[in-house]
Structure formats: C-alpha cells, structure tokens
C-alpha cells in the first residue's frame, strides 16, 4: 500500500477549513466491494485506508446476483478493516460517500444501502458520487495534472475526455463494447480465462507472449470514436480455428491487443492535437496494463507532453477514489439527505456540472 498515508496537494481552491475533514467512500458498482477513507486538512489530502474484496467468478463472467451476494457477505468486514487501517471509529468520519452509478443494479444497491444506513443511523451527511468521475478525480490528484487529456479505460468504459466549462466533455468513446470488456470477452470465449488476471497480468497479455507473429485484424476508428465489436468477432473467428495451437492463439492475442491499443492511442493523439493540452492521464482498470502504458509513454515523448498512468491500487475500482471525490462534493456543499440518494445504473459523467472543474 504505497499510496497510503501519502499527502497530496488539493488542486482546487476551497474556503479554508479550520479542522480536519474525513470522508469514508463506498464502492460497489461491479466486482469490487471497497471502502476507502481520506483526510483533508490545510489544503492537503491524505489517504488513510483502502480496503476491498473482489468477486472472482470461477467460470464465465460477472454474474450480477453472485457479485451482489459477495458484496453482502463481505461488506461488514471490509468496512471494519478500513476503519481499523485508519484507526478511526465511524464517529470520527465527517461524511459518507457512495458510488451511485454507473454500474450493475444489484451491486450498486449494496453500497447505497450501507451508505444510507451509516448516514441515517450516525447522523452523517451523505454524498452521491459518479463512479467514472471518481476514477478521473483521483488520477488528477495523484498525477498533479489539472487539465489533461483524459483516457478512461476499464471493463465498462472507454472514453477520451477533456474538461470544459465545469463539465467533462466526451471527445470520443466506444460505440459498442469497452476495451476491458473486449479483452475479457475474448479471453473467456477463447478459453484462456477465468482467471482473468494472474499476478497483475491479464490473460490476453500472458497469451500474447506465446508468439511473436502478427495477424491483420479489423481496425475501426470513426473520427475520435472507436468500435471494438468487429475486432472481437474477427479475432474469435481466427481463435476458434487454432484448435489448441498455443502459438497461433498467441499471435491472435498479440494482434488483438496491438490493434485495440493502437486504435485507442490514435484517437488520443487526435484529441491532443485538437485541444492542445499538455498532458495525458490514463485512468480506469485497464490503465495498469504495461503494454498500453508503453504506447502512451511513446506518444507523450513524441509530442513533448506529460503522461501519467494511475498505479494498480487506484486504477482498478476502489473505495479511496469514491472517498476523495466525495470529499470534493463535501467541500463544495453538495451533500444530500439519505432518503434522496438513489442508484443510477446509467449515469453519464457528462450529465452534470462539477463546480471544481476548470
């Protein structure tokens, strides 16, 4: 836990607060149930705790009901662990933040119910956080980039964004499936997953090392938008013909990864030229992929701009990012009553204005 107890300068200016403010954040949008705690004092943010438990399917993909049951069973222990790590009681927390969407309905309900309970029972203000915004906000905090081109890639999202007029503006996004979903679905259908991730490496990355060959696959970029479904179909078709030939399957994995990442890098380049920003921020679950980071490091160097890819412990879903984004809401007075906090399965990050954005 290298990031714990480190301090970060808060890049937005808010009215000075005389005392410390601690926010507890709950994440339960998909496969991860996480609780994080942050502390704010004197213009600096400190990470106190980041506890989580992950639902890992033994076969197939995420089953919403199974993931929901996992969250229900693990919520109390994760919450307790986070409070222990932070050496706090729930009374020492100033506000409860919860990710209300986007995500899987049953899973979201676990986090929302816990948050409403904590808020109502202990009389703490509650903050509703957009999960996607949280991924970006924590990336901005840790990188120190105030106005980057943001590349958000995870199992449920693939977007290129910039900030404008207090809103997130989507410059380009996937027209069908997200990048993480592409890799997971391919791995599952090709028979190399689950487990999807072994020792921080994705099944597709492991498989890609079995070969040094490349196969041409469909490449679909429309302006700044991406489409991965044709690529998936084509890659699976070839994968099925390999019939257990490890080296051939390796070539498919290698080419699939190369094609998908090249597409993403191309639209990022285009956005960079279009907006003249001076940094690139890579966030979301797929941000910890070393091959993707290598490609981004190349273009950052080529254009002479900054690059930061969030480290694995905050790249994947976590409670810390919800706590931190909750803190931003809290500092700007965006708090709610527990009976007005509802989950939103479809919750776009460009729907609302966020007062701390440039």
């Amino acid at each position, binding site marked *: 836990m290298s990031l714990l107890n480190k301090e970060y300068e808060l890049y937005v200016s808010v009215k000075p607060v005389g005392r410390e403010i601690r926010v507890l954040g709950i994440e339960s949008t998909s496969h991860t149930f996480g609780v994080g705690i942050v502390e704010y004092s004197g213009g600096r943010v400190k990470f106190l705790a980041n506890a989580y438990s992950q639902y890992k399917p033994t076969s197939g993909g995420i089953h919403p009901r199974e993931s929901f049951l996992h969250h229900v069973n693990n919520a109390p222990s994760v919450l307790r662990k986070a409070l222990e790590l932070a050496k706090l009681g729930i009374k020492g927390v100033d506000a409860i933040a919860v990710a209300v969407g986007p995500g899987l309905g049953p899973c979201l309900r676990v986090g929302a119910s816990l948050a409403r309970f904590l808020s109502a029972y202990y009389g703490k203000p509650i903050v509703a956080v957009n999960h996607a915004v949280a991924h970006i906000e924590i990336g901005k905090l840790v990188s120190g980039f105030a106005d980057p081109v943001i590349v958000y890639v995870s199992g449920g999202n693939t977007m290129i964004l910039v900030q404008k007029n207090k809103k997130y503006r989507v410059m380009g996004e996937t027209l069908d499936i997200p990048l993480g979903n592409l890799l997971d679905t391919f791995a599952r259908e090709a028979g190399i997953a689950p487990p999807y991730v072994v020792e921080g490496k994705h099944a597709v990355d492991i498989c890609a090392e079995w070969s040094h060959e490349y196969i*041409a696959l469909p*490449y679909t970029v429309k302006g700044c938008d991406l489409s991965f479904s044709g690529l998936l179909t084509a890659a699976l078709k070839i994968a099925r013909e390999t019939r257990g030939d490890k080296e051939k399957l390796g070539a498919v994995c290698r080419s699939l990864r*190369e094609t998908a990442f*090249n597409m993403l890098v191309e639209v990022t*380049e*285009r956005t960079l030229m279009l907006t003249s920003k001076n940094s690139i921020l890579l966030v979301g679950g797929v941000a910890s992929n070393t091959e993707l980071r290598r490609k981004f490091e190349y*273009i950052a160097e080529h254009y002479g701009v900054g690059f930061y890819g969030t480290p694995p412990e905050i790249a994947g879903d976590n409670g810390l990012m919800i706590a931190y984004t909750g803190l931003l809401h809290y500092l700007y007075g965006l708090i709610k009553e527990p009976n007005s906090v509802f989950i939103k399965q479809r919750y776009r990050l460009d729907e609302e204005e966020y007062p701390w954005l440039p």
Partner: protein
Amino acid sequence: MATIEGRNTILLSRGAEAEVYLVDFFGLRAVMKRRISKKYRAKLFDEVFIRNRTRVEARILSELYEAGLSVPSVLFVDEENGVLIVEYIEGVRASESFEKFDLGKATSISRRIGGFAARMHSLGIYHGDYTLANVLLRESEVYVIDFGLSGYSSDVEEYAIDLHLMARSIKASRPLDAEVLIKAMLDEYGSHYRGDYREVINRMKEISVRGRYIDREVRKSIMRERYIA
C-alpha cells in the same frame, strides 16, 4: 522523393497522422501529405496501416476526380513511404469564411455541399470527416479535401454521419441561419442521391439524438419513429 523535399517546401500543417507540405512538383504547386510512422505501433502494423490508408485515400480521390467531382487531382503516390501528392487548390477554408457571407451566398454554398455529398455517396464513398474545415472555396466553386478518413461502404450509417457532421459544423459557424442552410443542403442532397434519400435523412436525425446532451424524451420520440416505420 529526395528531389521533392528540400526545394520550396513549406510545412502547411502537422496533424496527428500526417504532415502536410506545400511543394514544388516539377514546376507545379502541389500539396504533399506524408503519413508519419509511429513508434508505438508494431512494425508490421505500422507499415500496413500507412500503406492502406495512403492507398485508399489516393484511390478515392482519383475515383471522385474521374467522376467529375471537385476534388484535388492525384499527382503522385508512394504507398511504401506513405506519401501522397495532390494538386494545390488556391482557396479559403469554408470554416474561416462561411460566417462572413450574406445569406444568399451561404445558402448556395450549402446547396453545393449537399450536392457533393449526394454524388459522392451515390458512388458508395463516404468522407469520414465532412466538415466546413475540409471544404475549400475558390470563387464560386466548392472543393472538398482531406479524404484521410474516407472509405467505401454501402451502409447508410456512414452517409448519415457525413451529413450529421456537416450539419453540426454549419450550426457552429452560423447558429442563426443554421436551419435554412441545413435545409438547403439536405434538399440538394435529396435531388442528387441515387438511393432513397429519406432513409439517409432519417438515420441522420437518429444519429443526432444518439448524442450526449439530448433530452431523454426527445430521444425516445425520435427512436420510436424508427420502430413504428
């Protein structure tokens, strides 16, 4: 290539994918577009990518030129090096001048833009980045440039995207007259498009509500039409 570079070569623009130069091509003023090799791509992919995009752009440009559409003519292609040299067209980008014209002239330009799209689509070709920035005006003539994202397709979706992008571009340039100008573009499109133009126009409406700042009720009402019809 060595003879082209170095002499009277002026960099016009540097994009994400290519560098564009004004060059002297055997005494002729020409535009050279050179696709840049990217280190982040595997070597094979980089070569295939550059070769294919250069080839498609050159092929489409010559096809349109032969069909009598106002595009720059292709002078030279070097697929291996990703170099394309085309005729230089002395004109102003519509994105820079469109807002200054009186309504009559703007309407006539919009009509030509619609007519161009219809004739291009009738050949099974889409532009992929059809905006005012890629329209050049020389006196009363309308030229379309930069076919870097163009392709062959019989899918009305691609055609509708072209019209949608242009409509959005017109709206950004002249918000007050946009309705009249877009109608002029679409009317002209309808009278030149070979297939059923209503199909393209309906899809264009649908694309505009797929957008991200659209009221849910508006979106529902338009999407509903698709299923009823």
